[in-house]
């Protein structure tokens, strides 16, 4: 009886070790940190410069924000003579484009008052206004740029934002 119990304990231990080894062998390689791309400060500065260059063609002085993958500000500049709301609006447009992975202008129609998604407008920091464009690598949003204060309004802000991203298009892979 004693020896049978010993044998049982022994086999349980063997099975336990085998299971443990199995867990280690199969799960350990998967338990690496996530590695995700995010827009770098250097890229953000290039985006801002190119967007400002485009917008200044008609004399517009813009406030502009680049957010990273997390929706946090990476680089931003407030225009000379900006209205009090412009800077914050540029950030929220960028945040909106980043979090929905589409131009912030899309959010205007998708979340219109008569739509099922109207409730999304109650999220913090989003804004249903054009002028925010996501920075994409394929299907992956690594950041976004948002602009406020251009003379041509939202359509023109989108043009400037796209011109900014175009400056780093070669690095988006």
């Amino acid at each position, binding site marked *: 009886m004693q020896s049978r119990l010993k044998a049982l304990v022994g086999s349980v231990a063997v099975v336990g070790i085998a299971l443990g080894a199995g867990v280690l062998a199969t799960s350990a390689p998967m338990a690496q940190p996530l590695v995700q791309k995010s827009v770098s*400060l250097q890229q953000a500065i290039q985006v801002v410069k190119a967007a400002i260059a485009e917008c200044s063609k008609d004399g517009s002085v813009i406030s502009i924000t680049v957010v990273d993958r997390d929706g946090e500000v990476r680089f*931003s500049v407030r225009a*000379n003579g900006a209205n009090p709301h412009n*800077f914050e609006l540029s950030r929220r447009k960028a945040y909106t484009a980043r979090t929905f992975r589409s131009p912030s202008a899309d959010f205007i129609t998708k979340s219109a008052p008569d739509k099922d998604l109207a409730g999304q407008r109650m999220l913090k920091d989003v804004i249903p206004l054009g002028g925010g464009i996501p920075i994409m690598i394929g299907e992956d949003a690594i950041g976004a740029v948002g602009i406020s204060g251009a003379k041509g309004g939202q359509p023109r802000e989108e043009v400037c934002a796209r011109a900014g991203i175009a400056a780093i298009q070669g690095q988006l892979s």
Partner: protein
Amino acid sequence: MSRFTTVSAALLAAALLSTAQAAPLMERNINSEDAMVAYERMMSSCGPNLNNVTVVFVDRAGDVVLQARANGAALHNLDLARRKAYTARTFRTKSIEWRDRTTGTQPAAGQRMLAEVIPLGGGSPIMIGEEVIGGVGVSGAQGGQPGDQACSDAGAAAVVALAR
């Protein structure tokens, strides 16, 4: 009657005088284009490793004009850089000097209870003569607070050089 007329004329003149004085304030302020150029120029004074150097420029009102969060920034760096800039702006002095004059039992110690200020080196006022037009704050440069301070001093100097 003539006295009344004289008094009325004097009042009218006084009213005109005060109208003439009621022009808007003309204040100098940091130019955001200068801030962008200064940001890039100051980096040569911010140590060999720029991966952690976060910078914020504030204007005369203490509001953010430019912010650049380093790729390797810790969570607190951006707000710290902003508060250093704000501190330097509002006290018109380097934040490392303000730190040292508000310690312990000094008469100015209570200033540390203000919102937004921070008693840490790395903030520099942007001065045109005696007039403050903004501030620059740095967090994350090598060499701790003296390193941050040298970096922000370079930023303020770069703006002043551009403003002249």
